[in-house]
């Protein structure tokens, strides 16, 4: 359980840090907002499109890790809990 919480918190921190850093960068370096890529402002690219793949990647990573943690935990407890059962 503790490992699960740790995993959740790491992923959460990462996602929030990525999200929260953009306005902070933009506030400190206003020039960032004036960058354009092929005539499209960077702000539009980041806010409109770039965040979603990041979210998906974090979520996918979390799901995989959580499944592994549970599998490991189950195999650890399994022999012990089977005895009273049988």
């Amino acid at each position, binding site marked *: 359980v503790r490992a699960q919480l740790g995993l*959740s918190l790491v992923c959460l921190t990462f996602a929030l840090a990525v*999200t929260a850093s953009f306005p902070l960068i933009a506030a400190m370096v206003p020039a960032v*907002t004036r960058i354009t890529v092929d005539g499209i402002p960077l702000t539009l690219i980041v806010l409109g499109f770039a965040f979603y793949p990041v979210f998906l990647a974090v979520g996918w990573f979390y*799901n995989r890790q959580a499944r592994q943690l549970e599998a490991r935990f189950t195999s650890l407890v399994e022999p012990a809990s089977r005895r009273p059962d049988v």
Partner: protein
Amino acid sequence: MSDAAIGAIAFVTLLTIMVGARGVRVARTPDDFMVAARQVPPALNASAISGEYLSAASFLGIAGLVVAQGLGALWYSVGYTGGYLVLLLLVAAPLRRFGAYTIPDFAVGRLGSRGLRQTATALVLVIGWFYLLPQMKGAGITLQWVLGTPYWVGVATLGVVVSCNIAMGGMKGITFVQCFQYWLKLCAIGIPALVLLIATGHSFSPNLTPDRAPVFTQATVVSLTQATGFTLTRSAEATVTGLLDQRTFQDQAVRLCACRHVAGAGTRIGFAAGDPVPVSLAMEPSSLESWDSPFLTSGTGGAHPLAATYGVIIATFFGAIGLPHILVRFYTNPDGEAARRTTLIVVLLLSSFYLFPTVLAVLTRLHAPQLYLSSDSDSIVLALPSLLLPGLPGELLAALVAAGAFAAFLSTSSGLLVSVAGALSHDLLHRGVNTFRWCAISAGAIATIAALLIDRFSLALLVGWAFAIAASSFCPLMVLGIWWRRLTRIGATAGIVLGGGSCLAAIVATMLGAATGGWGAVLLGQPAIWTVPLAFGVMIVVSLLTQRTVPANVGQVMLRMHLPEALSRQTYRTASQASRLAQDRRTPDL
């Protein structure tokens, strides 16, 4: 406006009513649909969750807000999606294993307190109503635009249809319908966006260049449907027909100065390519100067944009956990592992949906900037197709958009109304199905009346407020309840009351126009930035102070939430008495 749009809306509405009528036979009792739906595969369930989640704010509000106030409004769509990531990381699997249907159920099951149930129920009502208002408003705008009926007709129509539908049988239980609604909505916004994108072609436009006021890309005649005040950033030659600045013109060339102008209803102003786009005075002043600023300015009068942006990020990221009508869907997953997969698919589905409002908003900015002059930014998505693509194709696209929008109102408000009515009848009044019906009707009526009073707030803003309340009341309850053994019921109650209460108070103050600028406006208009930490803080501090009241069965409850399914079955068999009690508590109810 067009027959196709009327037909499309009527079709969606009829479909919903018919399914609701069938629901009477299918779902006689609340237990039926809850239990029967327990084996829903993740992909289907994820579509259903998305279908219920994507509301008027997503469909109309975000694009409108982006056009009106700039790219900063995209934080709403990022946040609405990010909320599910947080939900996945923090609550999805444990919540499914816990097996509570509603937030009040969770509160009682985890902390065993009657008083907490009442508090939580009251907040479910508040959040539900706050979320219902924008749906009603969206319906009002859509019908106003399609049929030319007054605003209240649309609001009343949606209120009556949804209330009666739910009172008759409820459509909530039919996962398949919600799933269908998602794909309908995706098509209804995706197809127009793609078609318009192809039709207009990719051409470089000065309107996307940062720090520039928008200009007309081609000669455009702006027709004003109502008296409008607007400003110009530069002086411009224009051909005016009708009343302007208290003078009547008849197809005359006029030199408009770079200042304020007032045009009468029915005035038509022709601009040449390269002329600055007039900006309506009704809109936020910030829309002109910094359209591509990454900050958000709505609801705060443009002050302290960084703080306002973080307010929205916090509210939307943490608000999704506390939305009453979403939580109930998680119980239809077979197990915790499936709940995780479902949530990930929801993130995927929402991501793909939110690409399209962005596209539509950018298209508006590029090719139809005269929509800046329409007084209500929320109707932009509806008006765009027929402006860019004249003739039958445009009308068909507009019909599709209108139908999708109506699907959005119907599905979201049905889900909400079931939650609200369920909370009223079950948690407050402790009655059965008949009371539930009356609660549905009266809750719908209250929301309808309230919606008539709020038409000056933008859709995305209203929904953002509902998220803020959820984030500063239920989110700490869920997160701490799942992960922290030492949470006590007094701490939880104190946190909910203080966090949710202060957030609600701030929003009401904003609605009444208490503060119009500076820090006051930011802290009241985007309250989540301080109410969420406040709620967490109060909950932790008060819990630590009242450690003697930690529920005795906390270990048991924690075990059930976090054990993988493969193990929990054995645990149930061995821990006889307590888990049987726990299962009683899980009996489905509404």
